[in-house]
Protein backbone atom coordinates (compact mmCIF):
# COMPACT_ATOMS: atom_id res chain seq x y z
CA UNK A 1 0.00 0.00 0.00
CA UNK A 2 1.11 3.51 -0.68
CA UNK A 3 -0.07 6.92 0.29
CA UNK A 4 -0.24 9.42 -2.52
CA UNK A 5 0.16 12.91 -1.19
CA UNK A 6 -0.64 15.51 -3.82
CA UNK A 7 -0.24 19.21 -3.19
CA UNK A 8 -2.31 21.04 -5.78
CA UNK A 9 -3.98 24.37 -6.54
CA UNK A 10 -7.17 24.73 -4.50
CA UNK A 11 -9.20 25.57 -7.59
CA UNK A 12 -8.24 22.26 -9.15
CA UNK A 13 -9.65 20.19 -6.32
CA UNK A 14 -13.09 19.68 -7.82
CA UNK A 15 -11.68 18.48 -11.10
CA UNK A 16 -9.18 16.12 -9.53
CA UNK A 17 -11.77 14.74 -7.16
CA UNK A 18 -14.16 14.10 -9.99
CA UNK A 19 -11.53 12.34 -12.07
CA UNK A 20 -10.60 10.11 -9.15
CA UNK A 21 -14.23 9.32 -8.55
CA UNK A 22 -14.69 8.29 -12.14
CA UNK A 23 -11.79 5.90 -11.79
CA UNK A 24 -13.47 4.42 -8.73
CA UNK A 25 -11.31 6.08 -6.11
CA UNK A 26 -13.71 7.58 -3.63
CA UNK A 27 -11.70 7.53 -0.44
CA UNK A 28 -9.51 10.53 0.09
CA UNK A 29 -8.62 13.11 2.68
CA UNK A 30 -8.19 16.79 1.99
CA UNK A 31 -6.23 19.34 4.02
CA UNK A 32 -5.83 23.06 3.52
CA UNK A 33 -2.12 23.84 3.56
CA UNK A 34 0.20 26.57 2.48
CA UNK A 35 3.22 26.00 0.40
CA UNK A 36 6.32 27.51 -0.98
CA UNK A 37 7.92 26.36 -4.14
CA UNK A 38 9.62 28.24 -6.89
CA UNK A 39 7.80 31.55 -6.29
CA UNK A 40 9.53 34.52 -4.73
CA UNK A 41 8.20 35.80 -1.47
CA UNK A 42 6.07 38.92 -0.99
CA UNK A 43 6.66 41.35 1.83
CA UNK A 44 3.65 42.28 3.93
CA UNK A 45 3.31 45.35 6.09
CA UNK A 46 1.25 46.24 9.06
CA UNK A 47 1.30 48.96 11.63
CA UNK A 48 3.68 47.24 13.98
CA UNK A 49 6.20 45.83 11.57
CA UNK A 50 6.50 43.75 8.47
CA UNK A 51 6.55 40.12 7.52
CA UNK A 52 7.14 38.09 4.43
CA UNK A 53 4.46 36.05 2.72
CA UNK A 54 5.94 33.39 0.55
CA UNK A 55 3.36 30.80 1.41
CA UNK A 56 0.59 30.39 -1.10
CA UNK A 57 -2.62 28.52 -0.32
CA UNK A 58 -2.60 24.97 -1.59
CA UNK A 59 -4.71 21.90 -1.10
CA UNK A 60 -3.26 18.60 -0.02
CA UNK A 61 -4.98 15.40 -1.11
CA UNK A 62 -4.09 12.15 0.56
CA UNK A 63 -5.13 8.84 -0.96
CA UNK A 64 -4.02 5.48 0.23
CA UNK A 65 -4.09 2.89 -2.51
CA UNK A 66 -2.71 -0.51 -3.42
CA UNK A 67 0.70 -0.55 -5.01
CA UNK A 68 -0.67 -1.39 -8.44
CA UNK A 69 -2.87 1.71 -8.51
CA UNK A 70 -0.13 4.20 -7.76
CA UNK A 71 0.97 4.99 -11.27
CA UNK A 72 -2.50 5.31 -12.66
CA UNK A 73 -3.42 7.73 -9.93
CA UNK A 74 -0.37 9.92 -10.06
CA UNK A 75 -0.82 10.24 -13.79
CA UNK A 76 -4.45 11.06 -13.41
CA UNK A 77 -3.73 13.74 -10.82
CA UNK A 78 -0.91 15.27 -12.86
CA UNK A 79 -3.15 15.55 -15.83
CA UNK A 80 -6.05 17.17 -14.04
CA UNK A 81 -4.11 19.44 -11.72
CA UNK A 82 -1.70 20.84 -14.20
CA UNK A 83 -1.92 24.32 -15.70
CA UNK A 84 1.65 24.34 -16.92
CA UNK A 85 2.57 27.27 -14.69
CA UNK A 86 4.83 27.47 -11.68
CA UNK A 87 2.84 26.54 -8.61
CA UNK A 88 1.07 23.48 -9.95
CA UNK A 89 2.42 21.45 -7.09
CA UNK A 90 3.97 18.12 -6.25
CA UNK A 91 3.01 14.56 -5.65
CA UNK A 92 4.81 12.42 -3.10
CA UNK A 93 4.40 8.67 -2.76
CA UNK A 94 5.00 7.07 0.61
CA UNK A 95 4.89 3.51 1.85
CA UNK A 96 2.02 2.49 4.11
CA UNK A 97 2.33 -0.59 6.22
CA UNK A 98 -1.28 -1.16 7.04
CA UNK A 99 -4.77 0.27 6.87
CA UNK A 100 -7.71 -0.28 9.19
CA UNK A 101 -11.36 0.56 8.65
CA UNK A 102 -12.47 1.81 12.03
CA UNK A 103 -16.08 0.76 11.68
CA UNK A 104 -15.39 -2.87 10.90
CA UNK A 105 -11.78 -3.26 11.98
CA UNK A 106 -11.04 -4.76 8.56
CA UNK A 107 -7.36 -4.50 7.73
CA UNK A 108 -5.16 -4.24 4.69
CA UNK A 109 -6.35 -3.62 1.15
CA UNK A 110 -9.91 -4.44 2.11
CA UNK A 111 -9.94 -1.42 4.35
CA UNK A 112 -9.07 1.02 1.61
CA UNK A 113 -12.41 1.04 -0.14
CA UNK A 114 -10.60 2.44 -3.13
CA UNK A 115 -9.80 1.22 -6.58
CA UNK A 116 -11.04 -1.96 -8.12
CA UNK A 117 -11.81 -3.72 -4.89
Amino acid at each position, binding site marked *: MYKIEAIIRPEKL*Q*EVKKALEEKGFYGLTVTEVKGRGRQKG*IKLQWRAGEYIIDLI*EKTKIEIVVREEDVDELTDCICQKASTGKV*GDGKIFVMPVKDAVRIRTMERGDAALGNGKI
Partner: protein
Amino acid sequence: MSDISAADTAWVMISTAMVMLMTPGLALFYGGMVRRKNILSILAICFATLALISVQWVLIGYSLSFGSDISGFIGGLDWGLMKGVGVEASSYATNLPHIVFSIFQMMFAVITVGIIASAFAERAKFISFLVFALLWTTLVYDPLAHWVWGGGFLGRLGALDFAGGLVVHISSGISALAVSLVIGKRNGFREYTFEPHNLPMTAIGTGLLWFGWFGFNAGSALSANGLAANALLVTNTAASTAALTWLFTGWYMDGKPSILGMLSGAVAGLVAITPAAGYVDVSSAIIIGFIAGLVCYFAVLYRSKSNVDESLDAFAIHCVGGVLGALLTGIFASSIINPAIRGGLISGNITQFTAQFISVVVVLVYAFTVTLIIAKIVDAIFGLRVNEQEEYLGMDITQHKEKAYA
Protein backbone atom coordinates in the same frame (compact mmCIF):
# COMPACT_ATOMS: atom_id res chain seq x y z
CA MET B 1 -33.85 80.43 11.35
CA SER B 2 -37.58 80.95 11.73
CA ASP B 3 -38.92 77.78 10.08
CA ILE B 4 -36.22 75.39 11.08
CA SER B 5 -37.62 72.45 12.99
CA ALA B 6 -35.42 70.88 15.63
CA ALA B 7 -37.34 67.64 15.33
CA ASP B 8 -36.82 67.42 11.60
CA THR B 9 -33.18 68.36 12.09
CA ALA B 10 -32.76 65.55 14.58
CA TRP B 11 -34.48 63.12 12.26
CA VAL B 12 -32.42 63.97 9.21
CA MET B 13 -29.17 64.00 11.19
CA ILE B 14 -29.80 60.53 12.52
CA SER B 15 -30.89 59.46 9.05
CA THR B 16 -27.57 60.77 7.78
CA ALA B 17 -25.73 58.62 10.28
CA MET B 18 -27.81 55.63 9.26
CA VAL B 19 -27.11 56.12 5.58
CA MET B 20 -23.41 56.54 6.37
CA LEU B 21 -23.52 53.13 8.08
CA MET B 22 -24.82 51.59 4.88
CA THR B 23 -21.42 51.85 3.24
CA PRO B 24 -19.70 49.68 5.84
CA GLY B 25 -22.82 47.50 5.62
CA LEU B 26 -22.36 47.22 1.88
CA ALA B 27 -18.70 46.40 2.38
CA LEU B 28 -19.69 43.46 4.56
CA PHE B 29 -22.50 42.43 2.23
CA TYR B 30 -20.07 42.27 -0.66
CA GLY B 31 -17.10 41.18 1.40
CA GLY B 32 -18.78 37.97 2.47
CA MET B 33 -19.28 36.99 -1.15
CA VAL B 34 -15.71 37.30 -2.38
CA ARG B 35 -12.93 34.86 -1.87
CA ARG B 36 -10.86 34.96 1.28
CA LYS B 37 -7.89 36.41 -0.55
CA ASN B 38 -9.83 39.45 -1.70
CA ILE B 39 -11.90 40.45 1.29
CA LEU B 40 -9.68 43.29 2.44
CA SER B 41 -9.62 44.85 -0.97
CA ILE B 42 -13.42 45.02 -1.02
CA LEU B 43 -13.39 46.61 2.41
CA ALA B 44 -10.64 48.98 1.31
CA ILE B 45 -12.58 50.01 -1.74
CA CYS B 46 -15.73 50.71 0.24
CA PHE B 47 -14.05 52.61 3.06
CA ALA B 48 -11.97 54.57 0.57
CA THR B 49 -15.21 55.45 -1.20
CA LEU B 50 -16.62 56.81 2.03
CA ALA B 51 -13.55 58.96 2.59
CA LEU B 52 -13.00 60.04 -0.98
CA ILE B 53 -16.56 60.93 -1.94
CA SER B 54 -17.05 62.73 1.38
CA VAL B 55 -14.19 65.02 0.50
CA GLN B 56 -15.21 65.41 -3.14
CA TRP B 57 -18.71 66.32 -1.98
CA VAL B 58 -17.66 69.16 0.28
CA LEU B 59 -15.19 70.42 -2.29
CA ILE B 60 -17.37 70.42 -5.40
CA GLY B 61 -19.87 67.57 -5.45
CA TYR B 62 -22.60 69.22 -3.46
CA SER B 63 -22.34 72.38 -5.47
CA LEU B 64 -22.34 70.56 -8.79
CA SER B 65 -25.40 68.61 -7.73
CA PHE B 66 -27.43 71.20 -5.91
CA GLY B 67 -25.80 74.54 -6.69
CA SER B 68 -27.47 77.19 -8.77
CA ASP B 69 -28.80 75.52 -11.87
CA ILE B 70 -26.95 75.93 -15.15
CA SER B 71 -29.41 75.28 -17.99
CA GLY B 72 -30.91 72.28 -16.24
CA PHE B 73 -27.75 70.25 -16.61
CA ILE B 74 -25.42 70.96 -13.74
CA GLY B 75 -25.09 73.05 -10.63
CA GLY B 76 -22.69 75.96 -10.41
CA LEU B 77 -19.65 76.00 -8.18
CA ASP B 78 -20.96 78.69 -5.86
CA TRP B 79 -21.27 76.24 -2.96
CA GLY B 80 -17.78 74.82 -3.48
CA LEU B 81 -16.04 73.97 -0.22
CA MET B 82 -19.46 74.44 1.35
CA LYS B 83 -19.20 78.19 1.05
CA GLY B 84 -22.55 79.65 2.03
CA VAL B 85 -23.84 76.30 3.22
CA GLY B 86 -24.57 77.12 6.83
CA VAL B 87 -27.07 76.85 9.59
CA GLU B 88 -29.80 78.73 7.76
CA ALA B 89 -32.29 76.76 5.76
CA SER B 90 -31.96 76.32 2.03
CA SER B 91 -34.69 76.23 -0.57
CA TYR B 92 -34.32 72.45 -0.70
CA ALA B 93 -35.65 72.07 2.80
CA THR B 94 -36.88 75.13 4.53
CA ASN B 95 -37.21 73.21 7.76
CA LEU B 96 -33.57 72.14 8.01
CA PRO B 97 -30.22 73.85 8.44
CA HIS B 98 -28.68 73.84 4.99
CA ILE B 99 -25.75 71.77 6.29
CA VAL B 100 -28.09 69.00 7.29
CA PHE B 101 -29.56 68.74 3.83
CA SER B 102 -26.14 68.75 2.23
CA ILE B 103 -24.61 66.09 4.45
CA PHE B 104 -27.65 63.86 4.15
CA GLN B 105 -27.24 64.07 0.39
CA MET B 106 -23.52 63.41 0.75
CA MET B 107 -24.16 59.95 2.08
CA PHE B 108 -26.21 59.15 -1.00
CA ALA B 109 -23.30 60.05 -3.22
CA VAL B 110 -21.08 57.83 -1.11
CA ILE B 111 -23.23 54.73 -1.16
CA THR B 112 -23.86 55.04 -4.88
CA VAL B 113 -20.16 54.77 -5.63
CA GLY B 114 -20.00 51.97 -3.07
CA ILE B 115 -22.48 49.98 -5.13
CA ILE B 116 -20.43 50.27 -8.32
CA ALA B 117 -17.37 49.22 -6.39
CA SER B 118 -18.64 45.67 -6.56
CA ALA B 119 -17.85 45.55 -10.28
CA PHE B 120 -14.19 45.97 -9.40
CA ALA B 121 -14.21 42.99 -7.09
CA GLU B 122 -11.30 40.58 -7.04
CA ARG B 123 -9.36 42.00 -9.97
CA ALA B 124 -9.00 45.78 -9.99
CA LYS B 125 -6.01 47.92 -9.24
CA PHE B 126 -6.75 49.97 -6.18
CA ILE B 127 -5.36 53.14 -7.67
CA SER B 128 -7.53 52.75 -10.75
CA PHE B 129 -10.60 52.37 -8.64
CA LEU B 130 -9.82 55.59 -6.81
CA VAL B 131 -9.37 57.53 -10.02
CA PHE B 132 -12.48 55.99 -11.51
CA ALA B 133 -14.52 56.79 -8.40
CA LEU B 134 -13.50 60.41 -8.46
CA LEU B 135 -14.30 60.82 -12.13
CA TRP B 136 -17.52 58.89 -11.91
CA THR B 137 -18.98 60.75 -8.99
CA THR B 138 -18.14 64.04 -10.65
CA LEU B 139 -19.22 63.21 -14.18
CA VAL B 140 -22.09 60.84 -13.57
CA TYR B 141 -23.47 61.11 -10.07
CA ASP B 142 -23.37 64.85 -9.65
CA PRO B 143 -25.10 65.60 -12.97
CA LEU B 144 -27.75 62.94 -12.37
CA ALA B 145 -28.43 64.20 -8.87
CA HIS B 146 -28.77 67.64 -10.37
CA TRP B 147 -31.10 66.53 -13.14
CA VAL B 148 -33.47 64.76 -10.79
CA TRP B 149 -33.22 66.56 -7.44
CA GLY B 150 -31.18 69.68 -7.98
CA GLY B 151 -33.55 71.57 -10.22
CA GLY B 152 -32.41 69.90 -13.43
CA PHE B 153 -34.45 68.84 -16.43
CA LEU B 154 -35.63 65.44 -15.23
CA GLY B 155 -37.06 66.90 -12.08
CA ARG B 156 -38.78 69.58 -14.13
CA LEU B 157 -40.13 66.89 -16.41
CA GLY B 158 -41.91 65.62 -13.33
CA ALA B 159 -39.89 62.48 -12.69
CA LEU B 160 -40.52 61.12 -9.22
CA ASP B 161 -37.58 59.63 -7.43
CA PHE B 162 -38.22 59.70 -3.73
CA ALA B 163 -34.95 58.37 -2.38
CA GLY B 164 -32.89 57.55 -5.40
CA GLY B 165 -34.11 54.82 -7.74
CA LEU B 166 -32.81 56.76 -10.71
CA VAL B 167 -29.98 58.68 -9.13
CA VAL B 168 -28.61 55.94 -6.91
CA HIS B 169 -29.63 52.50 -8.05
CA ILE B 170 -30.12 52.62 -11.79
CA SER B 171 -27.08 54.80 -12.22
CA SER B 172 -24.81 52.60 -10.12
CA GLY B 173 -26.23 49.31 -11.38
CA ILE B 174 -25.88 50.11 -15.06
CA SER B 175 -22.45 51.58 -14.44
CA ALA B 176 -21.36 48.42 -12.69
CA LEU B 177 -22.32 46.57 -15.83
CA ALA B 178 -20.32 48.96 -17.99
CA VAL B 179 -17.30 48.58 -15.73
CA SER B 180 -17.53 44.82 -15.78
CA LEU B 181 -17.53 44.86 -19.56
CA VAL B 182 -14.36 46.91 -19.66
CA ILE B 183 -12.54 45.18 -16.84
CA GLY B 184 -13.40 41.69 -18.05
CA LYS B 185 -14.04 38.37 -16.41
CA ARG B 186 -12.13 37.07 -13.44
CA ASN B 187 -9.68 34.32 -14.24
CA GLY B 188 -11.38 31.01 -13.79
CA PHE B 189 -14.86 32.43 -14.35
CA ARG B 190 -17.13 29.53 -15.35
CA GLU B 191 -14.15 27.19 -15.05
CA TYR B 192 -14.31 26.66 -11.32
CA THR B 193 -16.66 28.04 -8.73
CA PHE B 194 -15.95 31.07 -6.60
CA GLU B 195 -17.33 30.22 -3.21
CA PRO B 196 -18.40 33.14 -1.04
CA HIS B 197 -15.90 33.07 1.79
CA ASN B 198 -18.10 34.19 4.66
CA LEU B 199 -21.87 34.26 4.29
CA PRO B 200 -22.50 35.33 7.89
CA MET B 201 -20.58 38.48 6.99
CA THR B 202 -23.00 39.03 4.13
CA ALA B 203 -25.87 38.57 6.57
CA ILE B 204 -24.48 41.15 9.00
CA GLY B 205 -24.07 43.50 6.08
CA THR B 206 -27.68 42.98 5.06
CA GLY B 207 -28.83 43.72 8.59
CA LEU B 208 -26.95 47.02 8.57
CA LEU B 209 -28.22 47.85 5.09
CA TRP B 210 -31.81 47.19 6.11
CA PHE B 211 -31.34 49.38 9.19
CA GLY B 212 -29.67 52.15 7.24
CA TRP B 213 -32.30 52.01 4.53
CA PHE B 214 -34.86 53.31 6.99
CA GLY B 215 -32.77 56.47 7.15
CA PHE B 216 -32.30 56.39 3.39
CA ASN B 217 -35.98 56.21 2.52
CA ALA B 218 -37.78 57.63 5.52
CA GLY B 219 -35.11 60.26 5.94
CA SER B 220 -35.78 61.37 2.39
CA ALA B 221 -39.07 62.83 3.60
CA LEU B 222 -36.70 65.40 5.15
CA SER B 223 -39.17 65.70 7.98
CA ALA B 224 -40.28 63.56 10.91
CA ASN B 225 -43.85 63.31 9.77
CA GLY B 226 -46.44 60.91 8.41
CA LEU B 227 -44.77 60.80 5.04
CA ALA B 228 -41.58 59.57 6.63
CA ALA B 229 -43.58 57.04 8.59
CA ASN B 230 -45.23 55.80 5.45
CA ALA B 231 -41.84 55.50 3.78
CA LEU B 232 -40.60 53.48 6.74
CA LEU B 233 -43.55 51.14 6.55
CA VAL B 234 -43.49 50.55 2.80
CA THR B 235 -39.72 50.12 2.86
CA ASN B 236 -39.90 47.39 5.44
CA THR B 237 -42.86 45.77 3.71
CA ALA B 238 -41.28 45.71 0.26
CA ALA B 239 -38.01 44.37 1.65
CA SER B 240 -39.80 41.61 3.50
CA THR B 241 -42.01 40.66 0.59
CA ALA B 242 -39.12 40.57 -1.84
CA ALA B 243 -37.01 38.51 0.56
CA LEU B 244 -39.77 35.94 0.85
CA THR B 245 -40.47 35.98 -2.88
CA TRP B 246 -36.84 35.32 -3.76
CA LEU B 247 -36.60 32.70 -1.04
CA PHE B 248 -39.58 30.76 -2.33
CA THR B 249 -38.77 31.24 -6.01
CA GLY B 250 -35.29 29.93 -5.44
CA TRP B 251 -36.68 27.13 -3.33
CA TYR B 252 -38.95 26.11 -6.17
CA MET B 253 -36.27 26.46 -8.82
CA ASP B 254 -33.24 25.02 -7.02
CA GLY B 255 -34.86 22.73 -4.53
CA LYS B 256 -33.51 24.52 -1.47
CA PRO B 257 -34.15 27.86 0.24
CA SER B 258 -30.96 29.83 0.00
CA ILE B 259 -30.09 32.38 2.66
CA LEU B 260 -27.98 34.32 0.19
CA GLY B 261 -31.08 34.36 -1.97
CA MET B 262 -33.23 35.68 0.83
CA LEU B 263 -30.71 38.39 1.63
CA SER B 264 -30.42 39.33 -2.04
CA GLY B 265 -34.18 39.45 -2.23
CA ALA B 266 -34.34 41.83 0.70
CA VAL B 267 -31.90 44.15 -1.02
CA ALA B 268 -33.84 43.90 -4.28
CA GLY B 269 -37.01 44.90 -2.46
CA LEU B 270 -35.26 47.77 -0.73
CA VAL B 271 -33.94 48.98 -4.06
CA ALA B 272 -37.28 48.79 -5.81
CA ILE B 273 -39.18 50.63 -3.10
CA THR B 274 -36.58 53.40 -2.94
CA PRO B 275 -38.01 55.66 -5.67
CA ALA B 276 -41.55 54.86 -4.55
CA ALA B 277 -41.29 55.10 -0.78
CA GLY B 278 -42.90 58.52 -0.46
CA TYR B 279 -45.66 57.91 -3.00
CA VAL B 280 -47.20 54.47 -2.53
CA ASP B 281 -49.20 52.66 0.12
CA VAL B 282 -48.55 49.36 1.80
CA SER B 283 -50.53 47.25 -0.67
CA SER B 284 -48.55 48.67 -3.54
CA ALA B 285 -45.40 47.99 -1.55
CA ILE B 286 -46.32 44.33 -1.37
CA ILE B 287 -46.78 44.22 -5.13
CA ILE B 288 -43.55 46.11 -5.74
CA GLY B 289 -41.67 43.82 -3.37
CA PHE B 290 -43.12 40.76 -5.03
CA ILE B 291 -42.22 41.88 -8.53
CA ALA B 292 -38.74 42.95 -7.46
CA GLY B 293 -38.07 39.63 -5.73
CA LEU B 294 -39.22 37.66 -8.70
CA VAL B 295 -37.67 39.65 -11.51
CA CYS B 296 -34.34 40.24 -9.80
CA TYR B 297 -34.11 36.53 -9.02
CA PHE B 298 -34.32 35.75 -12.70
CA ALA B 299 -32.05 38.63 -13.60
CA VAL B 300 -29.36 37.17 -11.35
CA LEU B 301 -29.97 33.69 -12.67
CA TYR B 302 -29.74 34.92 -16.23
CA ARG B 303 -26.63 36.97 -15.55
CA SER B 304 -24.92 34.08 -13.81
CA LYS B 305 -25.53 31.89 -16.83
CA SER B 306 -24.35 34.59 -19.21
CA ASN B 307 -20.80 35.27 -20.06
CA VAL B 308 -20.70 38.53 -18.14
CA ASP B 309 -18.81 38.48 -14.88
CA GLU B 310 -20.64 41.33 -13.16
CA SER B 311 -19.41 39.57 -10.11
CA LEU B 312 -21.64 40.72 -7.27
CA ASP B 313 -24.73 41.44 -9.34
CA ALA B 314 -25.06 45.14 -8.79
CA PHE B 315 -26.61 45.30 -12.24
CA ALA B 316 -29.12 42.52 -11.74
CA ILE B 317 -30.21 43.85 -8.36
CA HIS B 318 -29.64 47.60 -8.30
CA CYS B 319 -30.23 48.45 -11.94
CA VAL B 320 -33.02 45.98 -12.59
CA GLY B 321 -34.58 46.68 -9.19
CA GLY B 322 -34.19 50.40 -9.72
CA VAL B 323 -35.84 50.32 -13.14
CA LEU B 324 -38.71 48.30 -11.73
CA GLY B 325 -39.08 50.71 -8.87
CA ALA B 326 -38.99 53.79 -11.05
CA LEU B 327 -41.59 52.42 -13.44
CA LEU B 328 -43.80 51.01 -10.72
CA THR B 329 -43.72 54.40 -9.05
CA GLY B 330 -45.22 55.69 -12.27
CA ILE B 331 -47.96 53.13 -11.86
CA PHE B 332 -48.69 53.07 -8.14
CA ALA B 333 -47.91 56.61 -7.01
CA SER B 334 -50.90 57.97 -5.15
CA SER B 335 -51.91 61.47 -4.19
CA ILE B 336 -53.55 60.05 -1.09
CA ILE B 337 -50.15 59.10 0.24
CA ASN B 338 -48.48 62.22 -1.05
CA PRO B 339 -50.79 65.15 -1.76
CA ALA B 340 -47.96 66.97 -3.52
CA ILE B 341 -48.25 64.70 -6.57
CA ARG B 342 -50.97 63.76 -9.03
CA GLY B 343 -50.52 60.01 -8.86
CA GLY B 344 -49.50 57.33 -11.35
CA LEU B 345 -51.14 55.18 -14.00
CA ILE B 346 -53.47 53.62 -11.48
CA SER B 347 -54.78 57.07 -10.66
CA GLY B 348 -55.23 57.57 -14.40
CA ASN B 349 -52.21 59.81 -14.77
CA ILE B 350 -50.32 58.53 -17.75
CA THR B 351 -48.00 61.57 -17.81
CA GLN B 352 -46.36 60.36 -14.66
CA PHE B 353 -45.58 57.00 -16.15
CA THR B 354 -44.17 58.62 -19.26
CA ALA B 355 -41.99 60.88 -17.16
CA GLN B 356 -40.72 57.87 -15.28
CA PHE B 357 -40.05 55.97 -18.45
CA ILE B 358 -38.16 58.80 -20.09
CA SER B 359 -36.08 59.34 -16.98
CA VAL B 360 -35.17 55.69 -16.80
CA VAL B 361 -34.00 55.68 -20.38
CA VAL B 362 -32.09 58.92 -19.99
CA VAL B 363 -30.31 57.71 -16.88
CA LEU B 364 -29.53 54.31 -18.38
CA VAL B 365 -28.08 55.77 -21.52
CA TYR B 366 -26.15 58.57 -19.88
CA ALA B 367 -24.69 56.51 -17.06
CA PHE B 368 -23.78 53.59 -19.26
CA THR B 369 -22.12 55.69 -21.93
CA VAL B 370 -20.17 57.98 -19.67
CA THR B 371 -19.10 55.12 -17.43
CA LEU B 372 -17.86 53.17 -20.40
CA ILE B 373 -15.78 56.13 -21.47
CA ILE B 374 -14.40 56.76 -18.00
CA ALA B 375 -13.55 53.11 -17.55
CA LYS B 376 -11.78 52.96 -20.91
CA ILE B 377 -9.77 56.07 -20.15
CA VAL B 378 -8.74 54.86 -16.70
CA ASP B 379 -7.89 51.51 -18.23
CA ALA B 380 -5.76 53.14 -20.89
CA ILE B 381 -3.85 55.30 -18.43
CA PHE B 382 -3.54 53.19 -15.28
CA GLY B 383 -4.77 49.77 -16.29
CA LEU B 384 -7.98 48.79 -14.55
CA ARG B 385 -6.80 45.34 -13.82
CA VAL B 386 -3.96 43.59 -12.04
CA ASN B 387 -1.94 40.97 -13.85
CA GLU B 388 -2.79 37.31 -13.78
CA GLN B 389 -0.24 36.38 -11.14
CA GLU B 390 -1.50 39.10 -8.83
CA GLU B 391 -5.09 38.09 -9.37
CA TYR B 392 -4.12 34.54 -8.48
CA LEU B 393 -2.40 35.57 -5.28
CA GLY B 394 -5.29 37.84 -4.39
CA MET B 395 -5.84 41.54 -4.09
CA ASP B 396 -5.23 41.69 -0.36
CA ILE B 397 -1.61 40.72 -0.60
CA THR B 398 -0.76 42.23 -3.92
CA GLN B 399 -2.63 45.52 -3.66
CA HIS B 400 -2.48 46.12 0.07
CA LYS B 401 0.30 43.90 1.40
CA GLU B 402 -2.11 42.74 4.07
CA LYS B 403 -3.74 39.50 5.08
CA ALA B 404 -7.32 39.42 6.33
CA TYR B 405 -7.09 36.50 8.70
CA ALA B 406 -4.06 35.14 10.53
